[in-house]
Structure formats: structure tokens, C-alpha cells
């Protein structure tokens, strides 16, 4: 009888075997704007932004203004597999920064994306 109980307990444990999965990937530019930077509207130049953050993901022209747009995409997937119940969650974070420069190349305005959770 003891063997039967051992077998049952073993099978019970196997049936509730759990596993976790996790992966992440990044694409786009490095989000250096999340590090301390000293950008000031009307003072900082486009050259200084380029030197601090590197080449932008996209360059646009809006009227007489030039726009530097930076984007980093971070995808994280986490999962818990219990066989009976499984749950996976994938979160894609689009971390962005945008800079508007006037015709003289001076910073007119800039902004970073608002994040649900702090990013690395």
C-alpha cells in the first residue's frame, strides 16, 4: 500500500510540474535620454543633442523646424506554465524622445515618453 501512495504522490507532483519562461529583446537606438542630461530650450543646440544621444531614429521637417525623433522598443515576455493553468504576458515598451529645433538649430522644445514603469 505504501508503494501505491508513493506512486500517487509522484504522479500528483508531476501533474503540477511548473515551468517559467522569460525573454526580452530590444530594437532601435539606446535610450540615453533616460540618463541625466542637461538640455535647455533656447540654449541647447542640435549638435549638442546629437553628441549626447547619437543619431536619431527619424528626422522630420515641420514647417521651419527640424525634429529629431528617437525610439527604443523593448519587448519582454514572461510566462508561468503549470500545465493545468498557463499564463504568459508580453509587454512592448516604446521609449521615445522628441526634439524640436528652430532654424538657428536651437532647441525649441523637447519631451520624453511617459512610462508605465521605470525603464532601464
Amino acid at each position, binding site marked *: 500500500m505504501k508503494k501505491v501512495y508513493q506512486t500517487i504522490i509522484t504522479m500528483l507532483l508531476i501533474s503540477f510540474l511548473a515551468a517559467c519562461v522569460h525573454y526580452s529583446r530590444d530594437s532601435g537606438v539606446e535610450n540615453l535620454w533616460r540618463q541625466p542630461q542637461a538640455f535647455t530650450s533656447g540654449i541647447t543646440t542640435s549638435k549638442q543633442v546629437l553628441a549626447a544621444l547619437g543619431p536619431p531614429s527619424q528626422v*522630420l521637417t515641420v514647417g521651419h523646424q527640424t525634429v529629431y525623433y528617437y525610439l527604443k522598443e523593448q519587448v519582454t515576455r514572461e510566462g508561468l506554465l503549470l500545465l493545468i493553468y498557463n499564463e504568459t504576458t508580453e509587454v512592448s515598451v516604446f521609449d521615445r*524622445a522628441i526634439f524640436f529645433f528652430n532654424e538657428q538649430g536651437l532647441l525649441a522644445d523637447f519631451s520624453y515618453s511617459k512610462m508605465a514603469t521605470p525603464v532601464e
Partner: protein
Amino acid sequence: MTKQAALILLLYFIYLPLLTSCSMVKRQYGYVEAIESFSPRDYHEVLQQIGAPDSVAVLNDAFIFAYHSVSIDEPQLGLAIPAFDLFKFTLGSATATHNYHFYAFTLHGDIINLQKTHWQNSLGESSSFGLIFVVEETVDLESFEVPRATNLWGQSLLLETNLIEFSFEDIILAKRLDLIGQDY
């Protein structure tokens, strides 16, 4: 109850969970902060209040900021297949919840129009066949997994101008909005 009957009953309760399984697949693309209604006068106030836009489009006499996030819930039910212990048949459906803000400005930066909207739509129902310890996708979500247009912008500048689908000017000037889950 005999010992044999008790053993069968126990085995039945052990194997019962293996006959079916439930899965929940959640996806979140982007994030739009919930904000109280406000009336911006220009793009400076929008940047200050909501942050950098998810997509920028520049038209002949206006430019647009779009903020877009999508969350997808895909509940699944897995059914065991007799004689194929390691495989299961999975039924699933997916629903997307969108949060979308739209702001249009003159080329001088003054607000022209704004709109906020929130909606849900079904992405369909489907099924799959796979291993019991793998969470298979049952609904095709390929359109949500393409790289953002911004990250392909530099690459698109190298395209052969005679072969591209859209005009080169459209690519350089970003005349279209890149919304999550939609072809750019």
C-alpha cells in the same frame, strides 16, 4: 468501497486535470497615460502634458501627434487528445483594447483639432494543435509584431526609388501615421 475502486477514483482525480488546461495570453503594446481632459493651445502643452508622441505625421499644412496603446487578452482552453498524451488541441479568442489620442497642429504649432478615444474589438477566434507544455498562439497577431516605422526609416531611405510602393517624399517627410497593429 474496495481498495481497487478507491485507487481508480484517485487516479481519475489525478488525471482529470491533465484532460484540460486553461491559458491566458496577455499582450501590451505601448502605453498612454490616463489624463484628465485638457485643452492645449499648442504642441508645447501637449508635449508637456502627455510626453513624446507615439507617431508623428507631417502634412502640407499641419502636423499630427498620435498616442496609441493596445492591450490584447487571449484566453485559451486546451483539450487533451486521447492516445497523444503530449499534445493538446487549443481553442482561443482574442480581444484588443485600444487607447488613442490624436492632436493636429498648424505648422506654426497651434492646435487645430484633438480627439481621444477608447474602444475594443475582437481579433477573432481560432484553434491550434501543439505540445501540452507550450502556450500556442491561436489568433494571428503578426500585424502587431512588425517593427515600428520609425525604426525602419533610415533603412527605407536606401530603397530603390523606382521600386518602392510609396513615393520617396512620403517616406522622408513621414506623411503617414504609424499605428500599432496597422500596416504602415
